[in-house]
């Protein structure tokens, strides 16, 4: 007879599981568990109750004598029926998808938090290459998926957050100036429910031209229906310290004479003349700790008026001890969520407060978000979400070669006797004339460097970004099979950057001030009509169709002002400019209108044919030629069902294949196709406008670039899903790549817009998962996840010269280039001249500069990750190793560090001279072993110089122990009657160690920014940091 069955459903850790669907099989009767995991339902003895929840194996229980049925659900680690979010937010069963898709859950993002969520993807997704620029707090990070498929412009994937296209650009330039966090860094990792990476053409074709570099679909957390109001508090405090430093020599100090040093004002160059050799910023001076006494900058600190010679001693660890600081980050997020039977809601507030490892650098982020979904009736539903993020810094660290405020550059050259701690208290240090009567605090060298702590306190680079993301959507279920949904979303931000330099700053002796303000918004409005049905006998055919349209409007306004010199020191107001300030203004807008359709035809739930079609009309294309069409087709076959291969050993076998043709406008921007003159950014004598004929030739015949992508994959699962293998092969060819092709300037133009190259990317991806130890409930569980991605990139058919210099891809005489037959990002520069058998050629004992040639390539051969996770009782453990193999880096830290004699290896031959290994001419057309002794400074300053870059190009391979977290959740029994649902406490570590690398003195994972050309170039980056955090999570 009918009776009421009640009980509690919990998860694998014994925590209550809300929202579990409970149905009486064969009836329409059903319910859900509440916030405490409790349910009650009417059923008859003998009825079968089915309990289902996404991510868990559906459990069936037969109603017996007992009126209570309580148990723990078992997670389905790679649930076959898992629903994944595909293009345009369309949810599909994973088994129906004919292309690779990899999804990360919230814990993979949040367990080891970072201030830039992009870094959390590193090593976790096959075929995805993440590069963090430097160890600066909030530094920009770059994502590429399946290789680089554009030569100019953005090579990064489209970012979609809850259906809103989000701008992920940095708007900074780490070659010089400040590195600004990429847009995605604004998102609070604690708000993320899942990250789905759409890699190939078929996965992204529905996004049209903007999806050609892949798409990262981020879904944020939302409330659950019939869930009581819950509050979650997550707090982390973490401590960061640099962990990769150059190996310095500690035996010789500043100067260029081994017997003499005299510091007069830190400004002059040379012995005795007008200032002693404190003006030399190199370390070819006298031996340290050898009993010398010299007048040094510290002599002036002790007694400015009567400096006395002091012992000339080493300070081996001063850079580490006295220059860098411990970075501290606190991260607090409070969220509330819940739902009624009609509505769900969630709100969260996050605050991140971070202090960098460089003195007086910081980053603060405020995140406020809220979302509501409401079923107005059986047919109507509406949803709203809004998110405001304020990211702000009182001082971003200055980076790159050209920036006088990059204090790490001072460490690259920094003389080896320097006690950095002695410079810290700049307010009480003697002032020195930097020329023109301008006084600044003393430094070990003032010609090329300011007192670093004075500069960090005074030459500030404030930055602020305010961002609003918002969506509104409305859905209507027209019939059981037909629904329509409309959504509009906005991503708006303003971004304000300033650079302030006091009088006395190197290269800006009369001060400097600039600001840039950028306002940008993009609105996407979309309508989607969806139809689903099953037909045929036994419903063996399934059909779903969706179609709709999207209108995108993008508007940008930028304003800048520069005071190249100031009148009043320290007053950073554009009106304080000594000459008329330089003012800049840039307005632009663009639109894309789109129509699209997608369909899925299934047979017997084991064969799925999917197709998509989209047409974009892009305003940046030439008038009348604005249309681009993108088709794709994919097939998924569940072979184990088709051939009835189901067994314990082989649980699942899916074959998939897809083909897609996508297109894009590449780097073509608003107005690029139409001719105009320009006004010089520098009016004549500061006042009269003057006009410029453009250097880039417009082209009204430019057409969209086209990418054809093919992909095949196998998804096989064994031993009741305990061993999972997913293999993918892909082959993409991007034709007619759009670019501002470089041409001989003698043509009157430096560049011409053209469709001028082909890029291919071929590769394989492998994802392996294994549950090595699996126990029910609270027992020991141990799992391993491995991912591997190998990509071969090649560019061909470059018009004209077959060579392209990449944007921002130049560091002294090394250029990052695209060349026919080579991968994009080859490092091209001056080599060593070689003898007949490849030995370095010497003349007068010095290596001879050879031809310019390819010295390396910035793209890795393969990337991979190894994740291990384990749980036991309330303990959860997870760790990650991150691997990049192959590729090269040009390290100018090595170039100048050798030239300046500060690195360890420059000790070789200091006293006795150097005999370079190689050959020299025998004077009769032959070669003999080089035997000419040269002084060490001449040797190192020749071998490591702008004329020979080959010496500083290194294999960029590395293996990093990237993440580790250990957490403990209190047993729920202990929390009974406390009102607390759960408490977990954890420690987490990011960048535990670099286990393998070839490049000396630096972290080979480094870049000047997110452009293709900025990869594989290094100079004076903030060292990578190791971060150790403690985390507390409480749910009420």
């Amino acid at each position, binding site marked *: 007879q009918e009776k009421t069955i009640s009980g509690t459903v919990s998860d694998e850790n014994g925590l209550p599981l809300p929202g579990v669907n409970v149905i009486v099989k064969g009836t329409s009767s059903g319910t859900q568990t509440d916030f405490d995991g409790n349910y009650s339902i009417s059923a008859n003895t003998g009825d079968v109750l089915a309990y289902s929840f996404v991510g868990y194996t559906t459990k069936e229980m037969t109603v017996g004598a007992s009126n209570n049925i309580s148990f723990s659900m078992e997670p389905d680690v790679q649930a076959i029926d898992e629903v994944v979010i595909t293009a345009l937010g369309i949810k599909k069963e994973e088994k129906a998808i004919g292309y690779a898709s990899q999804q990360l859950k919230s814990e993979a993002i949040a367990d080891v938090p970072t201030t830039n969520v992009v870094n959390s993807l590193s090593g976790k997704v096959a075929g995805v290459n993440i590069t963090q620029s430097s160890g600066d707090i909030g530094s920009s990070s770059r994502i590429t998926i399946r290789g680089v498929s554009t030569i100019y412009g953005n090579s990064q994937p489209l970012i979609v957050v809850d259906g809103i296209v989000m701008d992920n650009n940095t708007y900074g330039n780490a070659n010089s100036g400040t590195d600004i966090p990429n847009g995605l860094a604004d998102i609070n990792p604690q708000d993320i429910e899942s990250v789905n990476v759409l890699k190939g053409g078929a996965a992204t074709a529905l996004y049209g031209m903007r999806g050609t570099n892949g798409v990262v679909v981020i879904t944020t957390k939302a409330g659950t229906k019939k869930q009581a109001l819950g509050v979650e508090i997550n707090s982390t405090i973490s401590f960061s310290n640099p962990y990769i430093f150059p190996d310095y020599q500690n035996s010789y100090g500043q100067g260029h004479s081994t017997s003499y040093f005299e510091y007069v004002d830190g400004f002059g*160059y040379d012995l*005795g*003349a*007008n200032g002693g050799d404190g003006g030399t910023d190199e370390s070819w001076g006298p031996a340290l700790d050898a009993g010398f006494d010299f007048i040094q900058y510290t002599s002036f600190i002790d007694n400015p008026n009567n400096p006395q010679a002091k012992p000339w001693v080493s300070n081996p660890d001063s850079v580490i001890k006295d220059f860098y600081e411990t970075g501290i980050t606190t991260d607090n997020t409070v969220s509330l969520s819940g739902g009624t039977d009609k509505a769900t809601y969630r709100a969260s507030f996050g605050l991140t407060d971070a202090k960098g490892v460089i003195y007086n650098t910081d980053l603060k982020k405020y995140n406020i978000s809220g979302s509501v979904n409401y079923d107005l009736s059986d047919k109507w539903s509406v949803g709203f979400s809004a998110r405001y993020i304020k990211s702000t810094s009182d001082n971003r660290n200055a980076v790159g070669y050209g920036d006088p405020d990059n204090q790490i550059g001072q460490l690259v050259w920094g003389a080896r006797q320097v006690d950095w701690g002695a410079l810290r208290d700049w307010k009480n240090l003697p002032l020195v004339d930097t020329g023109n009567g301008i006084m600044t605090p003393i430094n070990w060298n003032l010609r090329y460097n300011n007192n670093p702590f004075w500069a960090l306190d005074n030459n500030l680079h404030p930055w602020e970004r305010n961002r609003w993301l918002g969506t509104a959507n409305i859905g209507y279920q027209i019939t059981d099979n037909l629904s329509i949904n409309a959504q509009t979303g906005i991503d708006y931000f303003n971004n304000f950057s300033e650079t302030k330099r006091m009088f006395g700053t190197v290269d800006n002796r009369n001060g400097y001030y600039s600001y840039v303000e950028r306002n940008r918004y993009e609105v996407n409005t979309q309508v989607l009509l969806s139809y689903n049905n099953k037909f045929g006998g036994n419903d063996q055919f399934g059909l779903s169709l969706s179609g709709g349209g999207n209108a995108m409007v993008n508007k940008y306004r930028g304003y800048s002002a520069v005071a190249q010199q100031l009148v009043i020191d320290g007053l950073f107001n554009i009106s304080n400019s000594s000459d008329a300030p330089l003012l800049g203004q840039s307005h632009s807008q663009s639109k894309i209108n789109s129509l699209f359709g997608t369909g899925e035809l299934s047979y017997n739930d084991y064969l799925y044919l999917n197709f998509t079609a989209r047409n974009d009309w892009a305003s940046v294309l030439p008038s009348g030629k604005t249309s681009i069409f993108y088709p794709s087709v994919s097939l998924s076959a569940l072979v184990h069902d088709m051939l009835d291969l189901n067994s314990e050993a082989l649980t699942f076998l899916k074959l998939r294949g897809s083909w897609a043709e996508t297109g894009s406008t590449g780097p073509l921007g608003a107005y690029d196709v*139409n001719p105009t*003159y320009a006004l010089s950014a520098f009016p004549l004598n500061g006042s009269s406008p003057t006009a410029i004929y453009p250097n880039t030739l417009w082209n009204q015949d430019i057409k969209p670039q086209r990418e054809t992508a093919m992909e095949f994959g196998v998804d096989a699962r064994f031993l009741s899903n305990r061993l999972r293998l997913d293999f993918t092969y892909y082959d993409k060819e991007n034709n007619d790549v759009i670019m501002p092709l470089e041409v001989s300037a*003698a043509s009157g133009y430096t560049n011409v817009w053209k469709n001028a190259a082909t890029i291919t990317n071929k590769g394989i991806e492998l994802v392996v998962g294994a549950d090595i130890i699996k126990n029910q409930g609270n027992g020991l569980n141990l799992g391993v996840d491995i991912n591997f991605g190998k990509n071969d990139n090649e560019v061909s058919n470059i018009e004209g010269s077959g060579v392209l210099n990449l944007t921002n891809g130049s560091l002294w005489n090394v250029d990052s280039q695209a060349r026919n037959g080579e991968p994009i990002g080859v490092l091209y520069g001056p080599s060593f001249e070689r003898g007949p058998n490849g030995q370095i050629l010497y003349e007068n004992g010095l290596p001879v500069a050879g031809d310019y040639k390819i010295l390396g390539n910035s793209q890795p051969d393969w990337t991979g990750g190894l994740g291990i996770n384990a749980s036991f009782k309330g303990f959860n453990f997870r760790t990650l190793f991150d691997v990049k193999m192959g590729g090269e880096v040009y390290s100018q830290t090595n170039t100048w560090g050798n030239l300046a004699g500060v690195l360890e290896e420059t000790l070789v031959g200091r006293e006795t001279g150097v005999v370079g290994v190689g050959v020299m001419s025998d004077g009769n057309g032959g070669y003999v072993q080089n035997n000419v002794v040269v002084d060490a400074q001449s040797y190192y300053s020749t071998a490591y110089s702008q004329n020979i870059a080959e010496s500083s190009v290194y294999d960029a391979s590395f293996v990093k122990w990237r993440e580790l977290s250990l957490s403990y959740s209190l047993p729920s029994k202990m929390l009974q009657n406390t009102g607390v649902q759960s408490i977990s406490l954890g420690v987490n570590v990011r960048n535990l160690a670099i286990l393998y690398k070839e490049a000396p003195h630096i972290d080979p994972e480094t870049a000047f920014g997110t452009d293709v050309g900025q990869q594989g170039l290094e100079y004076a980056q903030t060292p990578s940091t190791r971060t150790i955090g403690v985390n507390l999570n409480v749910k009420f």
Partner: protein
Amino acid sequence: CDGDFDEVNTNPNDPVEISEDLQLGYIERTLLNQVYDYFASGECAATWPQHLSKPIYNDADRYFPRLSALNAFWNTMYASVIADADEMNRLAGEAGNRAVQGAALTLKAIALQTLTDAFGDIPASEANQGDQGNFTPKYDAQRDVYVQIFDMLDTAIAHFNSGAGSIDGGQDLIYGGDTAKWLKFATSIKFRAMMRVSDTDLFDASAIQAMANSGNLITTTADNAFIAFETENAPNANPYYDIVLNGREAEWCMGEALVDHMLAAGDPRLAVYANPNADGDYVGKPAGYINPGLSGYGAGVVSEIGDFYMQYDTPLYFINAAQVNLLLAEAALLHGVSGDPQSFFMDGINASLVQNGLSAGSFTPIYNGYQSIAEQLWVSTYMQGYETWAEWRRTDIPNDLDLAVDPQPGVGSIPTRYTYTNDELSLNGANVGAATANQGGDELTTKVWWDQN
């Protein structure tokens, strides 16, 4: 679906149409900044004939020019001077403004001559044809470049002589719109170009006589063609001032050859050209040395460039009366042009003295015919790197300049040209190859066509 796209894709920031003279100031300023770029002009053109040197970071002084600076020089001259001048000439032609056409052609001729003097064979007849689809212009032999330069200047002179049109004074940084002075400017540029080819078959003494007779040569400092900038910031300031602004005067110094010559001659201009060293002496540095400091020629030991030349508003010359008069002296002495060589010579010296803030007559060098004229062409073009280098190559005086110490391996004599740029080698390689074959090499020491001695 793209109904409003024409309007959406209309640039609100930049003009589609401009008046015919709105580019003039930009062209003048860009040309001047290239001719006085301190990495190309300063480190190479002024250093190799041993006017200047570097006591530190002296790669260029050892014949390793900064290749990026040469790239920038070439690219800017073509894409931002010649292309703009051609466009201005076109717009002015449409507007019937012959004065602006004359200015465009004069400035283009200077750009082409500066380029060909530095590199040898260069694109000229096919230059700036990108809008017709020619992105790999062929190189003309230097002789053909000069033929075109003379044509261009003849046309410019005819435009100015016509009296048609006018130049906006606000755009004209050189003469404030004074077309009478522009006529002298164009004529003097042609005169100097003709003297540059004095050792070749292209030389025409009668043309020189005609120019001298026209009264349109710049023979007094009042007519000098220069820009004196009014602000302290690039590109509206003397490029060398940037060195001062950054407190890096000590990275530059005087060349020993010039200092020793002027000391021996008791030349008062030395005190203007150079600052004394810490001991109050004028000391120049011999060319080269890997480690000048260790070799006794570090900063402080050697004399820096004189303060007079390092002001933000120091006049920077396209051409001046000192050089024109000295060349007239040479023309009178060697090529039968009417007038007394020594008188022209002294006019040149006096113009140079005045230009250096000294009074006319305050120095009378020994006059010893051609040797003295050539020496003074060398001395008085101080800080005009490309002119110093060109006059020295043409006259081979002084003929006793030493090879730099520790030169780039393989460079066995003082450079006589720039090597073709990396950009041209990769973007226009076939034509570079043809030019290299035509002029007998692409070395720093290859001689350009007019450098026949």
